[in-house]
């Protein structure tokens, strides 16, 4: 498996677009989301790395981004 840096993905109209604008708390929240779904990740210099297979799946990255920025979801879905 090869890994690459996770970049937040958001919907813009009908498109899913990667925005390299993660805030300071995003990495912690993303790790919680990934752990909740048993998604493998690594860390490098403060960046969260995920498989390139996941990075190619913009739809799933969009869902993970949404959840990592949803305080209510994070509160009710703690990592095991």
């Amino acid at each position, binding site marked *: 498996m090869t890994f690459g840096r996770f970049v937040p993905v958001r*919907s813009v*109209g*009908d*498109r*899913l677009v990667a925005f390299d604008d993660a805030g300071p708390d995003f990495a912690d929240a993303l790790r919680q989301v990934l752990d909740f*779904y*048993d998604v493998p990740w690594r860390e490098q210099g403060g960046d969260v790395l995920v498989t390139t297979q996941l990075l190619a799946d913009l*739809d799933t990255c*969009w*869902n993970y981004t*949404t959840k990592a920025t949803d305080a209510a979801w994070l509160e*009710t*879905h703690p990592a*095991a």
Partner: protein
Amino acid sequence: MHRQRQADHPGAGAPPAARAAEEVRPGLDSAAAVLALQASAGNQAVARAVRTLARDRGTPESGSQATPDAGAPATDAGSTSDDPEQTRVDAIVKKYRDMIAAARADGKNVAADNLQHWLDGKGGVRKIDVKWLRGFGCVTDAEDTNKGRFETSLNKQANGASHGDKKTFTDHWDRMFTASTRDELYYASGTSTLTSKGTFELSVIENEVTIGGTVLQHWHDPYDWHAGLSAYIPGFGSISDADALLVEKLRGAKPFEMEADWTQSLSGLIKVGKLWNTKTFTWSGP
């Protein structure tokens, strides 16, 4: 909505509708050709071809001039002004009306109704028939994607459960998808999103986890247009959404939301094993 946004996806290339427009463009001057195009390619292709044709005829690009009848209801009246912009909008609106008629003649009533709703400036929310919507494979594929996501999570929940446990699991997933250019949904909507919200009850007896729950399926898509978005048509260059936005600006056409809602149920049994789990999931509902 709008298919040509796909052209802005990295590597997406020209959208199918744009290609269809290019293929039929030479005959578009006749009503028969419009009907033929509608039959073979659908509304979007007609729209793109109409826009391309308008550009080729040297009509001015839109949007820069304010006009006194901004906000007025859309009309297909013939040209009543010497203002080139008004004349152009008259032509665009008439073509939209032709497209609506052609779509209805071809049985594509939802696509026609959507375009009519937008052109009439009704706004608001338009409910789309669930049976019609679910008749398209891309919609049920989106359902299946989200169902699979729930099933994966439920299996994980089962792995972490203990004898006697009873718990509720909730989650939600979005699936964005684009209809096939062969389907009316492509011309009625294009790209849309299915949001699935699931609530499940798990009860555990020894190594068996019994699951029951429901998923609220909410399909949604704004029927709108966006400045700056475009499709590349080989030989014609970039085609923008400016024409539709001009009709909104000058004739009161108005974006609206499309929605559909339905509920599906899940019953399942997961037998947690030492090496793997045996899973049975049964979905019911529309």
